[in-house]
């Protein structure tokens, strides 16, 4: 199956202003498998996913690694929200354009 992954904020900028990714996955795959597949497509984004700096949402809820995916799920990568972290040292990379 091919899942469509929505992109927002700095991620969209980092990934050449694309608003979504198409990721081929086997049936029965989980969020961890999606992260591994994205890591092969873009190592930087994959590493941020592994560190949970970027979260994965499935059907409008933040998902865990073991969450199983289907072809009809609405999936998104969520960079840190504008009010998320209060510690400057925890800030993700700035993206200028």
């Amino acid at each position, binding site marked *: 199956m091919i899942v469509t992954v929505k992109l927002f904020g700095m991620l969209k900028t980092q990934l050449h202003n694309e608003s979504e990714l198409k990721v081929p996955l086997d049936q029965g795959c989980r969020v961890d498998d999606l992260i591994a597949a994205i890591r092969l497509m873009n190592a930087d984004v994959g590493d941020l996913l592994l560190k949970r700096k970027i979260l994965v949402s499935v059907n409008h809820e933040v998902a865990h690694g073991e969450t199983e995916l289907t072809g009809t799920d609405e999936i998104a990568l969520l*960079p*840190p929200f*504008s009010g*998320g972290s209060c510690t400057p040292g925890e800030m993700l990379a700035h993206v200028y354009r």
Partner: protein
Amino acid sequence: MSTVDTEATLVRVQREDFSIDEEINRVRNRSTRIGGIATFLGTARDRSNDRDVSRITFEYYEGMAQKKLREIRERALQDFDVIEVLILHRYGEIDIGENIVLIVVGAMHRADAFKACKWCIDELKQITPIWKCEQTPDGELWVEQHP
């Protein structure tokens, strides 16, 4: 009460500016038991992280953002002794000084209204998928944290 407001009008993400008076009245008109209304209004400032900011653009995740704001309203109504909660956030390009976000909480007593209002804006900033991009002299900058 003269106004029949549904959850859809009490929780909104919208591009256009809003009238603070109208939104306060929306809450005020929900009950004659309300004796205190606390508000939080977030506005666009021209300085952030030691940089000048000339404009801010907000992006949000359609569907999930509204869902999280509805959850915040429901939890505030459940966990605090308040009568009504309104949460409104703008998206798109916002000029310096303009309104961004409004929380209005009506309660019988002010202490409960203040507490719930603070909790709502803090929670909004933690769990709502909204992203802020600031226009600075160095270019556009996505912001990941608010002090």
